[in-house]
């Protein structure tokens, strides 16, 4: 990790911009929303010559809290992220989602469910879903 320390106020360097504590989610929030109670982590799906890779942004979740269900045509990742903060904390802003999450990813073609592997590293969950090797059938 590298640090840079700057002894100016942000607003003095970046003229005309004010530092916002957080972005402004209030500005864009539609007036009413209906949503499932689980949040949905962000994910990438990409294809390698022999496998599909699903990469999920999931920092702060302990590995044994993640449930992966593999369907023929979909991958479902579920679990919960728990918030831990010191007892004398006082929040000024909060936008990280905690509690139960659920992600469903539709897969472009059939996979070999028995050879699915997953790694959790650096806050990312990486599931590798080998394609079915037709030549061996």
């Amino acid at each position: 990790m590298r640090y840079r320390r700057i002894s100016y106020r942000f607003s003095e360097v970046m003229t005309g911009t004010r530092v916002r504590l957080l972005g402004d989610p209030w500005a864009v929030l539609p007036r009413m929303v209906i949503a499932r109670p689980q949040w949905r982590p962000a994910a990438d799906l990409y294809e390698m010559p022999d496998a599909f890779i699903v990469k999920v942004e999931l920092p702060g979740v302990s590995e044994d809290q993640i449930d992966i269900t593999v369907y023929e045509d979909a991958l479902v990742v579920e679990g919960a992220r728990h918030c831990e903060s010191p007892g004398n904390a006082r929040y000024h802003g909060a936008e990280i989602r905690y509690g139960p999450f659920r992600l469903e990813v539709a897969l472009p073609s059939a996979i070999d469910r028995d050879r699915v592997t997953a790694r959790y590293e650096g806050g990312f969950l990486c599931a590798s879903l080998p394609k079915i090797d037709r030549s061996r059938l």
Partner: protein
Amino acid sequence: MTAERSDEDVELTLPNALPILPVRGMVLFPMAVAPVLVGQSRSIQLIDDVMKGNRLIAVVCQKNPQAAPAGPDDLYRVGTAAMILQLRRSGDGTIQLIIQGLERVRIRDFSQTDPYLIATIDRAKEPDETGIEIEAVGRSVRDLFRRFLSMMPDIPDEVGRAVELLEDVRQVAALVASALPIETAVKQELLELDSVGTKLRRLVDILQHEIAVRELGKKIATETEETMTKAQREFYLREQMRAIQKELGEGEDGERGGARELREQLDRANLPTEARREAERELARLERTPAASPEHGMIRTYLEWMVNLPWNRVTGETIDGDRARKVLDEDHHDLEKIKDRILEYLSVRKLRHERGLEKPEEVPHEPILCFIGPPGVGKTSLGQSIARAMGRRFVRISLGGVHDEAEIRGHRRTYIGAMPGRIIQALRRGETADPVFMLDEVDKLGVGIHGDPAAALLEVLDPAQNMTFVDTYLNVAFDLSRVLFICTANTETTIPPPLLDRMEILRLSGYTEEEKLQIARRFLLARQLGAHGLREDELTVNDAAIRGVIRGYTREAGVRNLDRALATLCRKVAREIAEHRRDRVAVEADVVETFLGPPKHFSETAERIDRPGVATGLAWTPTGGELLFIEAAVYPGKQNRLILTGSLGDVMRESAQAALSFVRSRAESLGVDPTAFDDKDVHIHVPSGAIPKDGPSAGVTMTTALASAVTGRPVRADLAMTGEITLRGKILPVGGIKEKVLAAHRAGIHTIILPKGNVRDLDEIPESLRRELEFVPVDTMAEVIQRALEPARMTV
């Protein structure tokens, strides 16, 4: 196990005690995400505490909104467990939250009241219900909600779309309940209802009521057509309600659905033979069908439509030409040509009728009249006058946004909630078979995937076919040949050509300030006084004041906003008089502001043209004429590019090219250095955002702006122009001259440059206006430049 449903319920873990956040004026439903502002210090402490832990709270509405802080007795017992998704503390110490409802909970006991409330709770999740009934009522809620939204311009569109996309009826109930602008107590009641079915049914109730109230309100406010009386409306709604209850198997009357009563009505309704036969068949079916089956309600609704249609009820009197003229004059200022044409049309109709020439096969069809013009020029009200002159009822439907054939022709009866099309619906409202029937906004008719509504409309309007118009729902012919159809539109360019072929266009282009003054004085003001219960001597407005209103508060071709402004004036005065603050009010120019607030419009030209490169064009739009400010600039650049901005249409781009080629090739005769364009980029911009920038009529303006930019000679400020230009600088005539001239005059323009070929159009311009304006007919661009540009300024 691949068929897992994605919306499967999650098992939530909720503790059995939760901190209670009392809220006022809102009810949080499970699954709803909502912003909440927290200001009370004990609530802030509550939030501070839960943020460190599981971030779960129970949101409970205050029964007694005045109580602050609210104690246990000030709260309802049922609330919603919620998770805090986002938090932001503002400078003043208050906290903004975004929370999500998770599950309904019932408060058992308060275990703590200080510093904030904590209660033990019982989970009270609504049971999941499915089945045909739930689906049907869910469908009704969606449909009604969509209808409701169409009346609520301030609810964003996404909400409507969201409701269509939701599969789970529980979510539908939650979203609709959250979105409805109804009292908190009613929302709480909805939350407390246990089953989804009853929630949805209650929502049907509420939506019906809200829609009826709004429709009625709108009707009273606009006083447009004579439609249903209040009693009729209630009857109609009650019928619909009953039909829905029937479908849900809730009907109580065990008798065979009032078949006897219907038969009696049928006898009185005087149906044509074919319709009578169909009705008898359905009546027999009704008697065989058990009242609890969904079929029953549908048959009954159908029969009710049949008995309530005005099959043979007509009111038309013979037309008396003098009387008709008198009526038209009573309602409308001037419009002489239009009135003449209307009277002619009516007398031809009368003659045909008297000579028995109505059989369409024998004589050429008479065209359908179509009034074309900007909003507020009196299209609708002319239609109303025609009805009055003929002693007929007036009905009106808007075709704007209709893109489904079934909206014209009706739905198949097998649908739940099927209805006849708008034509038949309007006839039922009008209660006669020969009303004056206005089809508004034919230019906004859509084409969708479900058939072509224009084709259906053609059939409605065609005298050779409309004697036997078959609405899909009714499934029997209804004779439309006695109806007098009149269309209205803002422009003919988007009217489907086959329809346009059948029409005779009568054009209303807008009024001059003088005409508006007369209309306000003789018509609008008197009507508004009446509508506000004021006597003529209680409110007087002098001419200067009316002119002040026209100039400062309206910018329009018609008089709609003027009418509104006068209504505001009357409302304010009526209030002062009702509260005994004054006996009578005389409005003069200098007090207009105290009633209407600061003026909204100023003359816009003078300040725009202050430098070389800006020219004022005149554009035609469906809402009347508009000024079009075109800016041109020439600056160093390597590629000799022509840059066009302001999202111009293709035709406009071509005009810009033509303008540039012309100025380049004539550089010398324009007094421009022939090398002025070498290594230069040319930029042309049309700033005003709202108007369609297509059409060749801006060619002259672009060329002038460009010439002005390269010569450094500004364009005269009180001058505007229109005209198409060829590559060789010849000027060709364009359309919409009258609208353009009116707009120019409104904006304080004094001189108008126009193509010679358009000179004959000036006959249509009122005399008074012609006297105030100077018209400069031109043939070539050279003449334009000579008249439009100020002499070159001496540089010091």
